[in-house]
């Protein structure tokens, strides 16, 4: 069901755990399945110096959290914001259709953490919006009526 890349990140998640003295923490829940992801950030000079995650969720959720932290680590906030869930999915060599929504968690948790950072430090980050309570679906795939 999952690609090798997903299984690798699920089995050996990178940057897993809590970050002491984080500059920003973002927690989001997935409206569709009830799963939860939290991202911890350390930011210095607009650059993400360190990032960790904690996830209560499926295999795809764990893997996307893991790879997302890898993708943003060392990047400027500006560049980090450009990383969409599509990029995350691609980096994992794909996800099953029904699991695309899981990858949204990572994107939104990162944004939530950045928002938290911006609020705490009185900074405004261009293009960043306050986090939604729940991460909803963007697209509906293959919604066949069942009767």
């Amino acid at each position: 069901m999952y690609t090798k890349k997903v299984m690798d990140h699920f089995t050996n998640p990178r940057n897993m755990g809590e970050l002491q003295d984080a500059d920003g923490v973002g927690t989001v829940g997935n409206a569709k399945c009830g799963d939860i992801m939290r991202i911890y950030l350390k930011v210095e000079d607009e650059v993400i110096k360190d990032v960790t995650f904690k996830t209560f969720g499926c295999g795809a959720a764990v893997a996307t959290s893991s790879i997302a932290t890898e993708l943003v680590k060392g990047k400027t906030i500006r560049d980090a914001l450009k990383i969409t869930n599509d990029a995350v999915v691609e980096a994992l060599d794909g996800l099953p259709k029904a699991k695309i929504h899981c990858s949204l968690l990572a994107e939104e948790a990162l944004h939530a953490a950045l928002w938290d950072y911006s609020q705490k430090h009185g900074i405004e980050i261009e293009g960043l919006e306050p986090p939604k309570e729940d991460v909803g679906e963007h697209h509906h795939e293959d919604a066949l009526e069942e009767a």
Partner: protein
Amino acid sequence: MEKRVYFDHAATTPTHPEVVEAMMPYFTQSFGNPSSIYEIAQINKKAIDSAREQVAKLIHADPMEIYFTSGATEADNWAIKGIAESYKKKGNHIITTTTEHHAVLHTCEYLEKQGYEVTYLPVDEYGVVHIEDLKAAIKDTTILITIMMANNEIGTVQSVGEIGALAREKGILFHTDAVQAVGQIPVDVKDMHIDLLSISGHKLNGPKGIGALYVKKGVRLKAFIHGGAQERRRRGGTENVPGIVGLGKAMEIAGSHMEAKAKSLIALRDKLIDGIKEKVPYCKLNGHPEQRLPNNVNYSFEFIEGESLLIMLDMKGISASSGSACTSGSLDPSHVLLGIGLPHEIAHGSLRITLGMHSSEEDVDYLLEVLPSIVQRLRDMSPLYED
């Protein structure tokens, strides 16, 4: 990882080698259409007749009360829609429970759209339906009560005999989805006052794609799949001879030494139940502690999510499930676990272990060895754990 332990017998079972052997002649040799007139087809007719007897015997029915279907899903659909249609002059009210299989629930929901009224009875924290609730739900218009004999997720066994007696007393037909019960615990359609009962082959070491519906003599049940004159004109379609023969054989095997087999499964089950309780903190047994299938263990582990748990177990060679396999297309937590009152996050973190034919004490020990550290690992990952 070489070791493989299959702990998902409630989802499906391996076909018993003797069942496969029994089926084989009907593919390439005695392949004729049982409705045909020539001698070679008569072999198939006889094979079907004796399978019908084998099926009937295990549930104490008459062979003429057994109708073969493509599985229990079809049997459930047929029973419920068929009775709804055949008895609509009498009433339009159906009673079921919130923890039925989707084959029953979605069929009932469909009927609601057609103008039928359906009462979904609640169950208690162990998954048991209370007979007073059932009594209170009965109306003048009630034509059918459909309540499963044993739950596929949490293993709770209902007091079907009591339900049947009440239904009979009130003159209401009683259907039970006995997919998980047949072959594991004694079933007697007469003693239990059952009018219709669904069976699935692949849940009792028979083949997939075959099942049966028991219909008590005298119950008016319209055909659901129209076509040829097969199954005494009640179910069209060329008979699946190998499947029918396989189901018959599986029922026969399941019936032999049932008690002894149940006893040894119960020993393994209880070792698992006690072992997990002892080794894994923050866990909760789902389902009834005693009124329970011999092969079912179902636990919720706080702070963790089921799929991750399953994948980790799978990596250790253990096949288990979280909620029912049929619903894994869906992302909602199991309706059964919600039905017994678990909150969403707890329902999410559930593990179903279902034992079967080849399960051994070694398998049980192995699970008890690897489970605690897997749960711990996932808890370390969880943002809910320290909260």
